[in-house]
């Protein structure tokens, strides 16, 4: 098993796991989200080729209504 942290939550997945597979496993709509791996943005086109490692920290964001803080 592979333990990674997604949006601050510990999650276990069968290894190996790519970023694209993680998005699929989490059942997230891939349109209009953005992903950061260990504080660096990973472009959509690179998700499939990006293999995750133990203790990786992933942030997945989308947009919400808001004017300011």
């Amino acid at each position, binding site marked *: 098993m592979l333990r990674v942290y997604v949006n601050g939550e510990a999650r276990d997945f069968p290894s190996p796991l790519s970023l694209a597979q993680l998005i699929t496993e989490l059942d997230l709509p891939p349109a209009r989200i953005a992903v950061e791996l260990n504080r660096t943005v990973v472009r959509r086109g690179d998700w499939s080729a990006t293999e995750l490692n133990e203790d990786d920290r992933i942030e997945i964001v*989308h947009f919400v209504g808001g004017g300011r803080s």
Partner: protein
Amino acid sequence: MKEKTPESSRESLMIAGRAFSSRLIIGTGKYRSYEEMRAAHTSSGAEMVTVAVRRVPLDRSSESFLDHLDPALQILPNTAGCYSADDAVRTARLAREALQTDLVKLEVIGDQTTLFPDNEQTLEAARILVKEGFIVLPYFNDDLIMAKKLLDAGCAGIMPLAAPIGSGLGVQNPANLRIMREQLPDATIIVDAGVGTASDAAIAMELGADGVLMNTAIAEADDPSKMGLAMKLAIQAGRLAYLAGRMPKRLYASASSPLQGVIK
């Protein structure tokens, strides 16, 4: 009386070479329903709306908020909720990746009670983002020196506050805005935060702002659609009054009618 520069007297709001015919930018938060938000966006005539970046919830399916916006609107992602330059830079990079836009409303907050900006962290983040090719519009305290530093850093425009975010207090320091306008005639100045009602927006424009950004004043109105229209008209009126050049203020009366020929 006032110097009218080519930039500040143009018909359109210019941001990094892009022209917007509406000088009103509005937020997308606090509306009671998506329908109400869309109605307010339409009546306001705004061409640009700002959206926030947040973690995707993992335990429930989430629809894309962006699907509720008119696709014709220019989306201005913001870094609302960031308390450090580092967080704001990361948030801006994520927004750019998701939306494929270089525009960002930079916001680095310094304090939870007032939501006042952390000017030092804002400047640091602005410098990094400009280097990375972002079109940076920073929210900051209404301070001329800070405005100059942000513009020197390469920001495409500046967004001084009128009053605390969501306070609806209106322009608290009209002199600061006027000084900023006069000293920075070529800068794009968009008053951000603190507008409560239409007259507040008109005052900001009369002081020479190029535009106004607001959220709560429209979203928390009893009828956001009507307030959206009120803001549109106020901004047009304020802009016209600025361009028209107001009369000087006097302490005493000055009759409009001739003194000669009054019956005795």
